[in-house]
């Protein structure tokens, strides 16, 4: 067993309303790939952000090469030899690849030396087998190439520890192979690596040990070669069992089609057709950038389509803007709820009635009493945990914010609801409740589309799954065909 490089113990981190890390611990040896897994919101990224000085923990001890460290900024962690490939891309689109990689390390003096960083970048690219021009602006590159730039940047620091936070989400198989080759090379040089991923097969393949977190707590560490995937999943999910969706049974006749989309195309979506039945939950599966959100936005009229028809209850409709869609009973719950779904600085009640405000105005005056009454009704109905309907939405937890958005669309009486990543950044308990609400809605006859990057979520919830890859509709899976392997097969089919 090689020597210990890093040890984290008793790490505590609070965010407003969330206890993000509870006495969390983690360790890393030299020349090891240590996988870190857990459901979304389990605290993986938070723990790594503590390690890299982005978040400062409330308490806890971090030892690096048997010296106690206490990072106050990303810079300090960097100088100590820790670098990270972030999950969300952190690049400067207006700068070139080389300028991005060597940001902060341009030269020793005041003046820049473009040739030197371009040469160094080219050398780095050669080593990593990346075929890109160091002088290309990053904004002109594809997402997977941008990801490779991020990886090249992390490696270029000659770090002792490299953290990969879901690096493969946007990479193709060939690029993933290339990354694993690089990681094996780094391993032999004694670099310790943390590997965060949702893909179990990758974890088995590349990692030496795997540590599981759940709800900000350390659950356990296993030997990757010996542990069974099922056991890891069990550790991740824990005792909480999600309510299963009562799926529409196949032998009964299918309920009527409420939404029919034909030949829908735009610059990101390529000729997609599908049908949605009454009371059905249809999952949209695919990798990031497959065009699922883009398709949803076309149906909702938020983006311009080049071709395509939408039929509601068999009648052709013309959806030119979100306003039209809402009028026709389509609701869209954005993946980025803070940006598109809520007015954070306003109260729960005001958020809920927002699209329906006209109904609560008499003679030009908004009736606060009526608003409070109807909002309270919906707060009870879907169990929004808030001290009062006057509470500001920004003070609620992620799960309850999501419920406020659901209430908003219910009040609008939408028959078709499109949930885009409904449980992103929501903790496990609240997730279960969101699922319950969605199931209840489907049962009551609403038709639902769920876009999710979490396969277990789609497997659990969907009656049927529509799979997309690079803007193209590659398959529609019926209930008995829905499983992880089939979905992944179609999601990576070009």
């Amino acid at each position, binding site marked *: 067993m090689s020597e210990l490089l890093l040890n984290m113990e008793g790490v505590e981190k609070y965010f407003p309303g969330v206890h993000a890390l509870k006495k969390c611990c983690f360790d890393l040896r030299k020349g090891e790939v240590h996988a870190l897994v857990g459901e979304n919101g389990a605290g993986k990224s938070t723990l790594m952000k503590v390690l890299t000085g*982005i978040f400062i923990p409330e308490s806890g001890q971090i030892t690096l090469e048997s010296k106690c460290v206490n990072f106050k900024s*990303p810079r300090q962690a*960097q100088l100590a030899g820790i670098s990270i490939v972030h999950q969300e891309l952190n690049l*400067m689109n207006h700068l070139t690849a080389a300028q991005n990689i060597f*940001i902060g390390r341009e030269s020793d003096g005041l003046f*820049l030396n473009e040739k030197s960083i371009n040469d160094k970048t080219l050398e780095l690219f050669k080593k990593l087998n990346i075929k890109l021009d160091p002088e290309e602006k990053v904004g002109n590159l594809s997402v997977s190439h941008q990801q490779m730039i991020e990886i090249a940047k992390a490696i270029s620091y000659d770090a002792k520890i490299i953290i990969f936070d879901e690096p493969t989400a946007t990479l193709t198989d060939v690029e993933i192979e290339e990354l694993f080759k690089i990681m094996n090379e780094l391993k032999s040089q004694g670099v310790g690596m943390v590997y965060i991923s949702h893909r179990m097969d990758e974890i088995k393949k590349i990692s030496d040990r795997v540590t599981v977190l759940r709800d900000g707590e350390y659950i356990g560490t296993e030997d990757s070669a010996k542990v069974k995937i099922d056991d890891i999943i069990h550790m991740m999910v824990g005792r909480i069992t999600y309510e299963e969706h009562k799926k529409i049974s196949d032998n009964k006749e299918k309920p009527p089609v409420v939404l029919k989309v034909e030949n829908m195309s735009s*610059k990101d979506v390529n000729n997609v057709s599908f049908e949605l039945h009454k009371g059905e939950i249809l999952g949209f599966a695919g990798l990031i950038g497959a065009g699922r959100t883009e398709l949803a936005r076309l149906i909702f009229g938020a983006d311009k389509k080049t071709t395509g028809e939408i039929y509601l209850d068999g009648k052709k409709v013309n959806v030119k803007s979100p306003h039209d869609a809402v009028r026709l009973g389509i609701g869209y719950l954005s993946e980025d709820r803070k940006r598109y779904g809520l007015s954070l600085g306003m109260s729960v009640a005001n958020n809920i009635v927002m699209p329906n405000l006209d109904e609560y105005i008499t003679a030009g005056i908004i009736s606060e009493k009526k608003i409070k009454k109807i909002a309270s009704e919906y707060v009870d109905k879907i169990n929004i945990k808030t001290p009062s309907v006057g509470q500001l939405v920004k003070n609620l937890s992620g799960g309850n914010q999501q419920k406020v958005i659901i209430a908003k669309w219910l009040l609008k009486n939408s028959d078709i609801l499109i949930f885009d990543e409904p449980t992103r950044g929501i903790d496990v308990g609240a997730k279960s409740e969101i699922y319950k609400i969605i199931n209840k809605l489907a049962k009551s006859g609403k038709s639902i589309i769920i876009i999710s990057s979490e396969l277990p979520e789609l497997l659990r919830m969907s009656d049927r799954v529509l799979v997309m890859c690079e803007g193209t509709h590659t398959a529609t899976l019926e209930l008995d065909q829905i499983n992880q392997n089939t979905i992944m097969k179609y999601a990576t089919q070009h």
Partner: protein
Amino acid sequence: MLKSIRNSGTHKMLAFAALIVIYIFFAIAGNNFTSVSTTLNILASSYYVGFLALGVTFVIITGGIDLSIGAVMMCSALVGGQLYRNVGLPIWAVLIAMIAFGTLIGWVNGLLVTKLKLPPFIATLGMMMVSLGLGSIITGTSTKNFPTILEPDGWFSRVFFRTESGFPMGVVYLIIFFIFTFIILNKTKIGRYIYAIGSNEEAVRLSGIKVNVWKGLAFVISGFAAGLGSIFYAATYTVIIPNTGNGIELQAIAAVVIGGTSLSGGKGSLTGTMIGVFIMSILKNGLISMNLPAPFQTFFTGIVVLGAVLIDVYRNKKANKVKKLS
């Protein structure tokens, strides 16, 4: 290398073409527009706006804005006048004090934005009003005179405004300042971080760079340029009246925008800003040569600004389309 020219150069080329077209238009439509005296006037009316525009380009590339520059320039000139007339400092010391004053206000702007986290619009709007008031308070709302050519310190005017033969000296300093700022923005770390912050501030922070230092420095450069501009304003007008000079900052910002610098940050150039400054002064003198009164200048400047921004928006859209296809 060719690629980077192609990427960043198109807007500048367009702006330069617009400059030529406007010049040719006035050469035909105006009276005596191509005469030596009009040419000198075009050069002369570009200095102090030019200094402000070059300085504020740094702030705008970081994604910020500096509304205080016009008021700071006026206030700095008034402070200089007070020191010269009432305190009796020698003129060279007064000039240094004027630059120092502008730099100081720039530094305060930087602190407000980086340490106190005020939005740049609000911070610099506040400092604009502070400077405006301060200028009147210090001088007791009285007009301040700088030495004219005939006075003992008249060398000041000859060195910074016009030589005895009538050559506009300010242009020489503007070009020197342009070269100086150009090197800072394009050849040093300072410039690299300023572009990087405008492109993606969080990414810069996560790369372990002290964002506050460099962002603050952009405001300091902007304030320094305003202080420098005040010298040329004083040399040109010699009589500084409190509470005047409203809207100079907007002329400077308009020149920056005409030059293709994006108000959302990350993108822009000083060459573009210089072209913008000259487009505005050609417009001003051209309309005068057509015997049109001052309001027409404001009107047409507005049209040019809208045109410049429209071209930029349109080009970005097109560039995005190309990206998606490839």
